[in-house]
């Protein structure tokens, strides 16, 4: 009996010792959230195949992405290349082992491939830590079919016109959520709040990075959001995924999204490219005519770790598998245009952007015209930004759920942020 147990223990130890060698692989490990959506999987696999680099694709939901990157790096698990939301860079850019692409490809080479303003999205403290995979903005999109049937011939320019158009949609589609305001997930709530805060002429920080959140504009914004919920022009429990479905199924006439909105409308309407005519990018309405409309800068980056896949003979090399893979996805016009055709993601490289496929696409032309003056998410570059995002989101929710009045919430946003700044 003793012998059997001893042998079992010995065998277990041998299996444990050799198990890790079976798990080893020469493929580069690419973590992303795009392939977490099943319909995107073959699209991305097709792009990856074109790079001719063997890749092990790991996907994570968008909501868990930051956590998974953080855990993989801190626990020293394999991770060679990762997708990143551009606004996460100030936080995740602090992680060790990120490659500076200026050192890898050379600054001049990069500037010949990608426009400077696009490269800017991946720059942090003078280093090029991310390369833009696709770019764009978070802008308002309207469902033209719903607007037409509700008797709305022109997109609203002011917030009052916007509210009035929502009432018309509600009257035409009583079961609809006329505007799919983000009311779920801290990141999404704080994003929509900022867009409407800018539309009311407000901001979170002033030019000297001092808090400007406890303002009349914040109170107006919060009251506006509460009015939308109270009058059932927007609804609770809505995130971007729900908004995309509602929009495609003609149950929401407006929502904020990136240029990929068209791709989702194609999928969720079930009508494919035929539905493109109804996806209408528009400028965010403003409090008073003549005010500047703002969209929010948005983009996906690829970052690269200083892992073995980034090196040749122990040194970082632009000929390494990781570098070849990133170069293919971010600078190869053929691959980028293929991605654009399949998903509507606007490419970052000069060669792809100057292609007629992009420059003559009506949707993209309309999208670019809708931007107004794009602004960076004000909370993205703040140290411990998640805490600030949570504060904004919680105070917005407390107003729309009727737990606080707008003035109290604006004051609480300020006091809680001041506490975080200490």
């Amino acid at each position, binding site marked *: 009996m003793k012998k059997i147990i001893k042998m079992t223990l010995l065998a277990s130890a041998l299996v444990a010792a050799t198990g890790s060698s079976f798990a080893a692989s020469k493929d580069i490990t690419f973590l992303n959230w795009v392939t977490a959506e099943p319909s995107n999987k073959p699209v991305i696999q097709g792009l990856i195949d074109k790079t001719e680099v063997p890749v092990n694709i790991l996907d994570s939901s968008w909501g868990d992405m*930051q956590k998974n990157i953080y855990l993989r790096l801190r626990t020293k698990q394999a991770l060679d290349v990762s997708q990143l939301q551009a606004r996460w860079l100030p936080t*995740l850019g602090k992680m*060790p082992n990120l490659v500076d692409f200026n050192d890898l490809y050379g600054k001049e080479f990069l500037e010949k491939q990608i426009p400077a303003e696009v490269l800017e999205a991946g720059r942090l403290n003078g280093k090029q830590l991310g390369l833009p995979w696709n770019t764009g903005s978070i802008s308002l999109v309207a469902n033209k079919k719903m607007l037409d049937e509700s008797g709305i011939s022109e997109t609203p320019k002011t917030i009052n016109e916007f509210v009035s158009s929502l009432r018309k949609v509600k009257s035409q589609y009583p079961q609809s959520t006329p505007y799919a305001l983000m009311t779920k997930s801290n990141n999404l709530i704080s994003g929509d709040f900022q867009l409407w805060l800018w539309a009311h002429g407000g901001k979170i920080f002033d030019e000297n990075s001092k808090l400007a959140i406890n303002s009349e504009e914040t109170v107006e914004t919060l009251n506006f959001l509460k009015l939308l919920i109270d009058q059932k022009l927007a*609804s609770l429990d809505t995130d971007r995924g729900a908004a995309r479905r*509602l929009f495609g199924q003609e149950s929401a006439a407006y929502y904020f999204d990136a240029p990929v909105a068209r791709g989702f409308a194609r999928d969720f309407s079930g009508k494919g490219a035929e539905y493109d005519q109804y996806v209408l990018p528009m400028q965010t309405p403003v409090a008073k005519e003549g005010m500047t409309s703002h969209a929010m800068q948005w983009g996906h980056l690829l970052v690269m770790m200083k892992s073995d896949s980034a090196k040749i003979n122990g040194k970082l090399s632009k000929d390494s598998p990781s570098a070849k893979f990133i170069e293919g996805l971010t600078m190869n016009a053929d691959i980028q245009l293929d991605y654009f055709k399949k998903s509507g993601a606007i490419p970052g490289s000069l060669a792809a952007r100057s292609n007629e496929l992009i420059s003559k696409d009506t949707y993209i032309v309309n999208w670019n015209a809708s931007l107004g003056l794009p602004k960076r998410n004000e909370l993205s570059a703040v140290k411990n930004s998640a805490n600030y995002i*949570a504060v904004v989101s919680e105070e917005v*929710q407390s107003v729309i759920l009727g737990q606080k009045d707008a003035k109290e919430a604006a004051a609480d946003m300020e006091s809680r942020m001041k506490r975080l700044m200490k």
Partner: protein
Amino acid sequence: MDMVSIKDRGLKRPKTERSLKAGDRRFAYLILIPAMTAFMVMVFYPFVDAMSMSFFQFTIYDMEPIFIGFDNFVTVLTDPYVLASWVTTAVFVVGTTLLTMTFGLAWALLMYQDFHGRAVFRTMTLLPWILPSTVSAFVWAWMLNGKYGVVNAMLLSAGIVDENIQFLSNDVGAMVAIILTRTWISIPLFMSFFLAGLQGMDFQQIEAARLDGAGNLTIVRRLILPHLKPVFLVTGALGMIGNLQQFDIIYALTGGGPIRATTVLSIEVFKQAFENWDLGMASTIGVLWVFTLMPLVVFYLRSLFKED
């Protein structure tokens, strides 16, 4: 302690213990090694590590932990939003434990009765407990969904409401949802405890009480509840400990929201660690959470040893 009492009572030590050969003893230690190693690696080391981490600042911005003494504890204990998590946890733990015990006992009494198909019912009762809790939580989340949920569809079609209710988007609804879901999952386990307790009862006592004219309520109050008192104590302690540790159901259903309405301690630790990237603060709340659990654990262990 035991040895002294044996000696005091003039009893002989068991022969087998004294005659354990040295080789056997070594072998006994050898087969203890895997369990001890697992305990040290999986429980003891992480606990000590978390304890020490609570005295450090260790965020995503810090390459190495920075010693800051009791600063994290001061921050936690002076932040009304974090302190509110203790109140939220208490509401969840007390609500869930009471409901589970009530329904668990009621269901056990029902399953104790002799009726046709009892074995099938008893087996089916175990289903919520067998299902992975995250799966159950997602099923409940879809059932209670404010747009597509089956609960709303039923209420609408029955004419009870004329528009969808956003169950998970208001603070009371969200708290009720997590309590009900956890209760639903836990009833089978509690029922099993109570059923085991009931099966140890002297049935003749109940028969005698009935002959004396006692009704169902009197029998439950005067006979069954006193008989089940030890079971109540153990299941109560176990239930409260389990509910204090609860994470997956709450995270899958509400993520701690809306606002912070369902942010119990486990969710608060998760948010600090993986949303705010502050491992020092997460460890501090974790340590305080352990101290919150400690009296219950001590009570439970004492109850167990008393039984022995």
